[in-house]
């Protein structure tokens, strides 16, 4: 085996494109192993770990593109470099055809395109605040997808946005729908009269999809980024979002989605709800009903409930809605199939809020619920690789995404974990989400399918029933074909849950013993 390295100085390719390039490079027949990455410390660590470090790679700078090829001979390495170079240039050609003028900075782009009104920024966190500031200074609204942005920078950016009357969605904001256009990770949903301000991406996606399913539609979905309701940031963007939706003629009902805010911020938000002329539905995962009701808001404990309340307030006829009640006979049936020792739920999620919701539903009945995103340190997994009792894992959390794309794009980590959990005889139910829509994997169910089929077979051979619940977050308008996804899931013998909320409830009820 020969390992060869090619360093292209000062060549920048974003991490997502690099992933797809790496994937294609590894499919080149003569390539044993290929890595295409920017010369960051983190990538060097990865390269060191797989034993491909060379002095050349060691000395590469953050702004250098590093290509490493392992192949049977030097000649084959050279051939591989050629093929990889083709992949690199092919990409450039296709992008050239779509936009005539190439701009390198936000400022020059704004000068060239005076109608520009929003910037989507998805660059490394160390460069992101600077670009976001440039966008705001050029009077663009901002959706900042990047994470690893300091809270000081976030406060500064949001304060600047506030002064200028602009939206500053993010950092770490992956979901928004503005003017009926889905940005980054969002589902294709109907236009309507419900506006959403969401501090959580998949939580907001879930609410839009449920509203769509109930026949309702969305005016705007404003993402704020997960830290907006923290003490430090003070809910700047959620407050601005509520105000804008209140003033928006097309919006009849407002829905707020978040994890529980810091108490002082909650007070501010509730005070604004009290003054708001439009009905406001509040779904703060694990939130407090009394406070919301006192402020004149409409409390929702779970996601589907939030969507239902919103469509009813927006004028839907309740008698005509299919609320998709829980399938009670199914619960009985599955309970009977599980052995007494099959006590635990394992939730393997790509969506953070979907994980949180299922976990909170489980916590209502069990006190031994562990997770990598538990707020109580006592119930936080000591080792995220090892499950304990009822365990809910958010694979989108930092421990799993360091140097890897989000599980909504790359399902590999979750597949491995699924196989591991399926072998555990104390596990009764494995519950998983499959997120469709813009930005997401083309066939998330298909990627998991072989693992589900095999796991169920193995369990059966060992004399136990393994219950797998799948929830598919998507609409019939999404490009992934939700019908096909559901059919694939059912064909594997898994149970299909009709909502995030139902997925959590089914998982919990299946493993409740002796009721």
């Amino acid at each position, binding site marked *: 085996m020969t390992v060869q390295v090619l360093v292209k100085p000062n060549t920048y390719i974003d*991490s997502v494109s690099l992933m797809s390039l790496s994937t294609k490079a590894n499919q080149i027949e003569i390539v044993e192993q290929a890595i295409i990455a920017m010369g960051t410390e983190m990538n060097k660590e990865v390269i060191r770990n797989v034993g491909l470090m060379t002095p050349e790679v060691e000395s590469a700078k953050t702004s250098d593109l590093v290509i490493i090829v392992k192949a049977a001979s030097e000649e084959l390495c050279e051939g591989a470099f050629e093929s990889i170079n083709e992949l690199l240039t092919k990409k450039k050609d296709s992008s050239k055809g779509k936009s005539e003028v190439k701009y390198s900075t936000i400022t020059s782009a704004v000068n060239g395109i005076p109608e520009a009104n929003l910037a989507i920024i998805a660059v490394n966190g160390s460069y992101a605040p600077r670009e976001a500031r440039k*966008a705001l200074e050029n009077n663009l609204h901002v959706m900042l*997808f990047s994470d690893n942005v300091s809270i000081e920078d976030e406060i500064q950016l949001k304060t600047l946005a506030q002064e200028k009357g602009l939206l500053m969605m993010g950092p770490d904001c992956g979901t928004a729908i503005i003017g009926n*256009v889905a940005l980054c990770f969002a589902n294709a949903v109907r236009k309507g009269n419900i506006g959403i301000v969401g501090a959580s991406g998949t939580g907001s996606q879930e609410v839009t999809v449920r509203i769509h399913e109930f026949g309702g539609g969305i005016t705007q979905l404003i993402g704020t980024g997960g830290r907006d309701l923290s003490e430090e940031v003070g809910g700047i963007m959620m407050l601005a979002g509520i105000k*804008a939706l209140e003033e928006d003629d097309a919006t009849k009902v407002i829905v707020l989605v978040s994890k529980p805010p810091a108490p002082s911020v909650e007070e501010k938000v509730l005070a604004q709800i009290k003054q708001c002329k439009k009905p406001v539905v509040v779904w703060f995962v694990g939130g407090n009903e009394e406070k919301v009701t006192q402020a004149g808001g409409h409390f929702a404990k779970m996601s589907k409930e939030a969507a239902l309340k919103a469509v009813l307030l927006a004028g839907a006829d309740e008698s005509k809605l299919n609320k998709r009640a829980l399938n009670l006979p199914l619960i009985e049936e599955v309970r009977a199939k599980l052995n007494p020792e099959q006590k635990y739920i394992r939730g393997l999620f790509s969506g953070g809020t979907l994980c949180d919701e299922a976990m909170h539903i489980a916590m209502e009945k069990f006190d031994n619920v562990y997770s990598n995103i538990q707020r109580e340190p006592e119930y936080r997994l000591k080792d995220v690789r090892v499950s304990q009792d009822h365990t809910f894992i958010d694979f989108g959390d930092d421990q799993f995404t360091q140097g890897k794309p989000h599980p909504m794009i790359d399902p590999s980590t979750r597949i491995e974990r699924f196989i591991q959990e399926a072998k555990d005889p104390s596990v009764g139910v494995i519950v998983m989400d499959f997120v469709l829509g*813009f930005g997401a994997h083309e066939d998330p169910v298909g990627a998991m399918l072989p693992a589900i089929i095999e796991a169920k077979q193995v369990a059966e051979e060992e004399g136990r029933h393994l219950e797998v619940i799948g929830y598919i977050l998507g609409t019939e308008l999404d490009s992934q074909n939700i019908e096909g996804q559901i059919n694939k899931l059912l064909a594997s013998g898994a149970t299909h849950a009709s909502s995030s909320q139902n997925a959590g409830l089914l998982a919990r009820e299946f493993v409740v013993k002796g009721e």
Partner: protein
Amino acid sequence: MSKINELFTNKLNVINVGIENFRDDLFKQNASVTHLDWTPPGRGNPELIAALDKLEDPSVTDKIEAANKAAVERIINSQPVLIGFDQAINVVPGMTKNTILHAGPPITWDKMNGPMKGAVTGAIVFEGLAPNIEEAAELAASGEIIFSPCHEHNCVGSMAGVTSASMFMHIVENRTYGNIAYTNLSEQMSKILRMGANDESVIHRLIWMRDVLGPILRDAMKLSPNGIDLRLMLSQALHMGDECHNRNVAGTTLLIQALTPYIIQTNFTVEQKKEVFEFVSSSDYFSGPTWMALCKCALDAAHGIENSTIVTTMARNGVEFGIRVSGIAGNVWFTGPAQQVIGPMFAGYKPEDSGLDIGDSAITETYGIGGFAMATAPAIVSLVGGTVDDAISYTTKMAEITTIENPNVTIPMLDFIGIPTGIDIQKVIQTGIMPIINTAIAHKDAGIGMIGAGIVNPPIEAFEKALLALSEEIK
């Protein structure tokens, strides 16, 4: 209506930075979206990013913007006029009999490359300071010759830029600001002193230029009452398809057309005048140095403006590429290694024969012509990759690192937009886009001469050093 509510009702028009897939999804939804050709600013170097941030502090930005506006206005408003020709010893500030000016930032004899050493020794022989090239080399090494950059004497010199006391110089006066710039005469052919050649034919030609061409031009211009407005002529030349660095066909024709009425009135023989016209028509390059002096004259007027981040000089000595910036007055050079020029070569020569980038001619790009005006010279697109689209994209790309379009010098093919003017150090570091320079290639060894032409970029180090210095200087 608040800006956020405006966003809800207006059509979405997105600028996408970073992940291309997001752009593709927006396309699918028929939204307007522009994907940026983005790279990390300052090559990701935190020190440079901190310097950029410092300069972009609102209190500082306003000062810089005002200073840069003043600088580019001086470049644009400069009206360089050719007012005469004379020997360097008579006009160039600081010139002495044993001074030799050279291109680029300061350099010592021992560090000079082949072409520059060839030119220096040839000039010493031409000046009669040594009988032959060997002894000229000894003299050059002895310390008795004063070497100094052309730029530090209000001059520019193409290629090696070697300028000695008795050589005839263009004299170009800035009618707006009063400063004067000088440059040598074109030697025309390829085997010439400025390219490092120094044999008998080269010296012989220099002597003829000193004794016939120079005096005729000097006497001719004495008859011109108002001088020759070079900026007007430059604009015409650009409209006729020159970019006035590597293509000078139209400019040379216009220049000799303007000079002819005066040349024929001088007291030289018809034979001598005929020699001059034949010499001019022997190469299209005759007006090349003239434009360089124009550019130098305009840019010197913009040098030394406090708080300005505009580049006023780009020049190379064959070893180092150096720049000067307006906000740091005087002769402070920021340098990096000279690069190899890439482009077509004369038959029989290979890239490894070429000397590294050399000459003060990058003053043309600093002004906004040459590589910056490629879009106007489709005839020489082979220098930049072969297609007219390539040529246009070079010009439009340069607009990303410059401050303004010069309304006095325009490009017909781009709807008469002005040439991109006023390279801003901040923009270079922010975008990573390097100025593009059209230039000739000299053989790496002394005594051979020009072997090709092509394009080259400056080393980014020079701009990085300048940015760091500016961030210290501007408070």
